[in-house]
């Protein structure tokens, strides 16, 4: 069973929220919609579900046009950011509710509810009402209710955003297992790149109502088609510097010239923009073959396992992440360095022309 959006657009109050999106999702896959708020993730999900009608374009299921068919006739389940459960029903009844609406026989309902509860680790709480549960348990109930329906398309709209950090971690670790067990098409919306990386599957990178790139998550991460994709898919934010290549060397904006080694070697002469993630920026390590930039520390953030060093260099602000504890003082001068084999190069149209070779 596949779901297709064919050149759909959507406008709200005269403002286009979705601009010409086409995509196809196959059975048994997990697709992550990654993008900042208001990039169109929720709008896409609502179009996939049938809650909204596109202004133009079609929605197809298994090749059949279902544009305009009400969501109640489609096989869809949705989980929201706010834990939405029926407050007066017990957990058991909550999970059973879609099956009761479908009029399934009692034994089947019981069997499927128990299975969903086991998958989401809700067995000890079956007789409680949602208000007697913690946030994480309420959201598990909502997910169980979405899964038990056996819908072909399950949509999750930032389902973990309202949970505590650690709970989010735990639930996120369990989700891939739950998704695989179900076999439906899963679509998961999030603003955090790390969630996309941890969930795997495919990623659709969104920005201002468009899908910028759609592919396997590691591939989109390692080969962003445009600089915008790299920016959306970076946390901490992507560092950027302009360069110009001529006569076998590269000149960095703000000063500094270096031989055009590594990935620079294969480029034609001209102006480019270099993007590098925080872990690609090295600090004071004296390694060979690096392009070095004298910089000043503006602030260091230490988490124990990592240190985020915010650097200021010639009117640019960069951030580097280092393993372990490094207590650099603000105002301290140090050398930041780039490995010319470990950068992303984008041309004047912001398209990717060079990327590190994947391991």
């Amino acid at each position, binding site marked *: 069973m596949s779901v297709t959006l064919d050149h759909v657009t959507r406008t*709200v*109050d005269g*403002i286009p929220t979705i601009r010409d999106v086409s995509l196809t999702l196959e059975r048994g896959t997990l697709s992550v919609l990654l993008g900042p708020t208001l990039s169109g993730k929720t709008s896409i999900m609502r179009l996939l579900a*049938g*809650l*909204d*009608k596109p*202004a133009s374009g079609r929605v197809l299921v298994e090749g059949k046009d279902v544009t*305009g*068919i*009400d*969501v109640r006739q489609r096989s869809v389940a949705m989980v929201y950011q706010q834990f939405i459960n029926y407050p007066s029903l017990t957990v058991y009844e909550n999970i059973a509710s879609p099956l009761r609406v479908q009029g399934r026989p009692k034994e089947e309902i019981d069997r499927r509810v128990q299975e969903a509860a086991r998958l989401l680790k809700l067995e000890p709480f079956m007789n409680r009402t949602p208000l007697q549960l913690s946030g994480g348990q309420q959201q598990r109930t909502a997910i169980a209710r979405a899964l038990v329906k056996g819908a072909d398309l399950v949509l999750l709209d930032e389902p973990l955003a309202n949970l505590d950090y650690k709970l989010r971690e735990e639930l996120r670790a369990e989700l891939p297992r739950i998704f695989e067990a179900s076999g439906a098409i899963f679509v998961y919306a999030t603003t955090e790149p790390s969630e996309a990386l941890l969930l795997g599957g495919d990623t659709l990178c969104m920005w201002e109502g468009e899908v910028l790139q759609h592919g396997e998550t590691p591939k989109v991460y390692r080969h962003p088609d445009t600089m915008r994709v790299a920016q959306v898919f970076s946390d901490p934010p992507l560092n950027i510097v302009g360069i110009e290549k001529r006569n076998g060397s590269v000149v960095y904006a703000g000063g500094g010239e270096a031989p055009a080694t590594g990935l620079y070697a294969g480029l034609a002469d001209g102006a480019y923009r270099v993007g590098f993630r925080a872990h690609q920026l090295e600090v004071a390590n004296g390694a060979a073959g690096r392009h070095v930039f004298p910089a000043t520390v503006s602030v260091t953030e230490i988490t124990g396992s990592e240190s985020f060093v915010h650097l200021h260099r010639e009117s640019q602000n960069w951030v580097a992440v280092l393993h372990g504890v490094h207590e650099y003082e603000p105002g301290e001068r140090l050398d930041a360095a780039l490995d010319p084999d470990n950068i992303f190069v984008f041309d004047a149209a912001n398209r990717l022309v060079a990327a590190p070779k994947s391991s």
Partner: protein
Amino acid sequence: MEKTVNQKAWFLVLPVFLIVAFSAILPLMTVVNYSMQDTFGNNQFFWNGVGWFKELLDPSTDLGGRFLASVLRNLLFSAIILAIEVPLGIVVALSMPRQGWQVAACLVILALPLLIPWNVVGTIWQIFGRPDIGLLGYVLNKMGFNYNYVANDLDAWFTVIVMDVWHWTSLVALLCYAGLKSIPDAYYQAAQIDGASRWAVFKAIQLPKMNRVLLIAVLLRFMDSFMIYTEPFVVTGGGPGNSTTFVSIELVKIALGQFDLGKAAALSLVYNLIILIVCWIFYTVMTNAGADRPAKESVV
């Protein structure tokens, strides 16, 4: 928002549509018909076209003069009661407790005047204001005021206004209370931290957040007071003379008193039109004031 379309819903509306057609639209057409004829109702009709309307809107004629005077009285009445009921309602809402059993008790007490049938309200005040057996009338006269709403224009107005305030302030208070309850505690805490005085808290937090609710309250009260009929009619009958003859009372006098159905029909249509226009103005102002501008500016 364009939701997916479900045609079956129209069938559910059909019965209501038929009932409304019978009870409202057909009689309305009858009134429109009457307004363009000269008749006393005994099935004799003489075409008058827009004659009644012209007469109605010309203050120099008898009909026009009476109409204009009653409209002005209505406007004055609405202005006065709004000026009293809105601030008073806000004050009551601010003074109400927010938690505990006292909340329910207050809500019940406030709701009581709203539940009394309107002609009973009129009757209560009619008796209440009588100088001989009414508590208000008796006390006022004993205090030296020569209070008699039957004979004195000012006293009649006073009585009708006080009655309306007593009857309807609760509505404003309840609406404002609902608006106040929706303000998160964090706002009050922040104001406390900022050292804001009680008045500053009111001006900066409570009043802006109550805006929507206040607009609804003002709209409702204006419409109701502009259409007012039962209460003043029971108390004063439009008198003394015609000092409290509001448009609705004038209309009844013409229709049922003089049996001038043509004039009355024309008057009721114009009356209806005025109210519709006022409603539309308020509605436009309300929805525009409440609409959030979608484009927000980022600062970082």
